[in-house]
């Protein structure tokens, strides 16, 4: 049920890919251990580049490698990669359309207890605003492994965020994600919960919980925040009565914003709520403590869903238990 950290799976997958294709290069900034790349460095030293603590530099190096036909994957903590290197990403990678894969590791509040310097809660907003840069946030191990394979073949840059801790499974064996395509995880007609990343399992459990109590919640996973699967989201808005978005990110500029922009500009006016980290330096604590504080849990999602639908919380049985916590 509970898998491994997505960033571990990503690096294991990349090692396999790199053994088959020597164009694949992994680059780190004193981050090989947190990126689970020590084995990669030992097995394929020629395809491994350590640049030290230099996040701006690494992005430029990767861009240069890409212009020479390499397929560079940059691994450094998401807070530093997405903020310190934002300009190098804008110019050297996105504007120049170099085939650089930017992997923001330990994203969101993976490093919850380390404080604001180590939180990356604006990365999706910053990266999403850069033209020509797809933004991907996988949920579970299976999806991570398959998306990395697809990204390696996909020509062009991407920003992909992974988390540090083990994540529960979401997808069944046989599921194959597709870049730019969302996944309908649970059909429903009362409201739609649209979610990304490491909160997908909690949202799906919340959806199941609601169904068991007579509320038909639809759950839609969006692993590619950009380009957004507009059709799937518009459909959800047309076929249900409310939209709740859930993300490990600021309520500004991330998945919720993307969904809201889409709905408003398609004249779809339905009750909507963006659940994420409010516009403040996030509380400091473990990832789970931060999630609990902001209601990014099964209980919190259920409560927000009920509020959106105008259902009194006491109307339904509230024997909520956190699964897999």
């Amino acid at each position, binding site marked *: 049920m509970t898998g491994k950290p997505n960033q571990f799976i990503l690096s294991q997958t990349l090692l396999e890919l790199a053994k088959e294709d020597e164009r694949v290069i992994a680059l780190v900034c004193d*981050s090989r251990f947190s990126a689970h790349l020590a084995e990669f460095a030992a097995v394929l030293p020629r395809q491994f580049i350590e640049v*030290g*603590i230099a*996040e701006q530099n690494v992005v430029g190096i990767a861009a240069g490698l890409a212009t020479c036909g390499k397929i560079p994957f940059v691994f450094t903590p998401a807070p530093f990669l997405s903020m310190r290197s934002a300009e190098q990403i804008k110019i050297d990678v996105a504007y120049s359309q170099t085939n650089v894969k930017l992997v923001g590791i330990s994203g969101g509040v993976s490093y919850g207890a380390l404080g*604001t*310097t*180590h939180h990356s809660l604006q990365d999706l907003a910053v990266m999403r605003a850069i033209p020509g840069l797809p933004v991907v946030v996988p949920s579970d191990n299976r999806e991570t492994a398959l998306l990395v394979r697809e990204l390696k073949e996909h020509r062009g840059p991407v920003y992909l965020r992974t988390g540090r801790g083990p994540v529960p499974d979401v997808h069944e064996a046989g599921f194959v994600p597709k870049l730019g395509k969302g996944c309908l995880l649970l059909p429903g007609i009362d409201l739609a919960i649209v979610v990304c990343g490491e909160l997908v399992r909690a949202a799906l459990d919340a959806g199941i919980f609601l169904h068991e109590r007579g509320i038909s919640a639809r759950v839609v996973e969006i692993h590619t925040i950009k380009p957004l699967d507009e059709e799937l989201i518009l459909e959800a808005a047309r076929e249900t009565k409310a939209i709740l978005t859930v993300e490990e990110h600021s309520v500004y500029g991330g998945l919720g914003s993307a969904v809201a922009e889409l709905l408003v500009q398609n004249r779809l006016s339905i009750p909507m709520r963006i659940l994420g980290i409010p516009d403040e330096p996030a509380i400091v*604590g473990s990832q789970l403590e931060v999630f609990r504080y902001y209601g990014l849990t099964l209980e919190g999602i259920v409560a927000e869903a009920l509020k959106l639908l105008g259902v009194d919380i006491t109307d339904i049985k509230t024997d909520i238990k956190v699964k897999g916590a």
Partner: protein
Amino acid sequence: MTDQERAALTDRARRIRGHIIKMLAAAGSGHPGGSLSAVEILTFLYFRRMRYDPKNPQWPDRDRFVLSKGHAAPVLYATLAEAGFFPVETLTTLRRFGSILQGHPDMKKTPGVEMSTGSLGQGLSAANGMALAGKLDKKDYRVYVLLGDGEIEEGQIWEAAMTAVHYKLDNLTAFLDYNHLQIDGRIEEVKSNTDPVGRFRSFGWHVLEVDGHDFAALERAVDEAQATKGKPTMIVAHTVKGKGVSFMENQVGWHGTAPKPEEAQKALAELGLA
């Protein structure tokens, strides 16, 4: 410095090491290596040199210390507690939900913290700003900043190094915690980031080299820094990562791993604090 004064500083440093071990063990995560390597530098600054008032942390005339290598927060917190900025009992709340002592220093939460750090490479610029303000306001406070030897791989450090020289920031004294280790290995394995003495000198800094665990040597260096006019001083402090705990010394694996309870006991016993 008299023998007695040195003994008092040594004892203080030992207590600070003890706090570091205990707080990390209580938190179950954090950075012992780079905290322990900087103990004498902070002890010297806070208990022998700097001018401050723990009851009035915002006193405008205070000397400033910026921990640019913010992951060494435990040594800063332990020193600030010993200096009276907050109770020593607070230390074991490190990294707990709601604590004023988070994994990396937050100037809004912790009395005595001058700058929020943790994203490496930024502290020297902030220290430049404090030193520039001191010049503008004709104040005689001094600004100290501690950099990691891995940290100086960040380009911003070198931008700041030029600024400090350009504005003749002789009220600024930087320390380099030259412990030769970062996370992925020895500094020279990770990057040809060698000869910091030559490099800072070529940028125009006054550069000194000292044993970073020797109080008398630190005092001589800081005296010389203070007497040096027209340029900033960089004190390259030769240190041992994990200093004071035999099994942590010079071990790259103790960069960011907290001691387990038995290991903490062993460390405290070595420090004569068990």
